[in-house]
């Protein structure tokens, strides 16, 4: 069986696996800051998404005040503009 992971699934899995976010804390309206990610963690997240999904974002495209929903949308937009 092939499992195609959505951008959202991948972002959520990365937050849990690489940034020690509790799965229960993952809600679409939670901000990155609220999940404990500082601006260094956000640059790491940008690099992980670039490496895993080939979705390239500028360093200031994601900010601590953005919600998980907004992050997913920014990445999906980057995918469409390729």
């Amino acid at each position: 069986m092939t499992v195609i992971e959505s951008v959202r699934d991948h972002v959520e899995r990365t937050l849990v696996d690489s940034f020690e976010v509790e799965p229960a804390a993952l809600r679409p309206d939670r901000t990155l800051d609220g999940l404990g990610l500082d601006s260094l963690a956000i640059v790491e997240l940008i690099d992980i998404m670039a490496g895993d999904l080939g979705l390239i974002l500028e360093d200031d495209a994601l900010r601590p005040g953005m919600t998980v929903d907004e992050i997913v949308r920014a990445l999906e937009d980057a995918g469409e503009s390729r």
Partner: protein
Amino acid sequence: MLLLTGATGFLGSRLCAELLRRTDQQVICLVRADSTEDAERRVRDRLSAQDPGQARSHRLRFVAGDVALPRFGLARDLYDALDIEVTDVYHCAASVNMAGSYRRLAEVNVTGTARVIEFCEASPEGDPKRLHHISTLSVFLAARRAGWDRVPEHAMPTPRTCGDFGYPRSKCDAELLVAAHALRGLPATVYRPGLVLADSRDGAAPHDDFIACLIAAAIATGRFPETDSPLPVIAVDHAAQMIAALSTVARTRPGLDVHPVIRPEPLLARELARHLRARGYDVTAATETEWLAALRGQGRNRYAQAMRALTISRHLLGLSPDTRLPELDCTETAKSCAGAGIVSPAMDRAYFSRALRHLSEHGVIPQPTQQTRSLR
């Protein structure tokens, strides 16, 4: 009796040793630890690496507590005993994560300062304790954008001079809290260290602060943004000496006393590149665009990532005219320090050589290559 917070920190541990050296008082270290024994072990371990004579001092006392909790999280009788015996509080504890958000940093930097002020003012019958508040010159990081090219020595920061960065904003709010209580009678002195650099005696420095990340990222990329940004720097041991000495001289100004804790001569960012080359690291000058591209080109190198994340670095490195650091006046403080016999350690090639050797010995940067060394 003196109470010191932040005694396990880079600056706090050296301040602890200086207070023991320059006063005959007991120094009580309030440390976030599991037990008194744990607090003692952590402070003495830290001191023994840099000041073995003071590490064994019998005038050191230890309390396990948390500066951000009501009554520092201490039992009422212990807190009350400290309230009666302590005359001066040196508040050096802070969260210095330059990448952290305001909300998280304020939990320690603003709430902690509020708790310390409460302690200083606690006793209704006795005199309030003098507060020695360790702040940072980064409260003026964005002073040029606020219209200040030169910051007078006794100026107070505003939300505009500190810019929209978590750390400077949290420290600015803490200072404004101290100033508000000073107006109502709290005896207080604010010390504002600039960029605190390696210990002049052995080159020891943090492995993950702004300067370590800048140097490691420059060596990894082979590039350096060689601006003439005037970095307000101070060697950590020099900063500790200045604060300890200034805190024990008689006060000359009414109200809140303020001291910038820096060398009178700033270090230009491009001089740092020169010291890297002198030690055998091949770095070439980069414009802002080239520097940011070189950092991205390093993939997941943690120091390059840190420099990308630290938007504060655009100010520290003065990457554009409006993010240039302001000039900082420190005339009166320099005079007081000279009067107290404080000698400024040289920040020359030998100093940076020790600092870079420390970083390479601890794996932050590679050893300089023999080949590049022999070319110079």
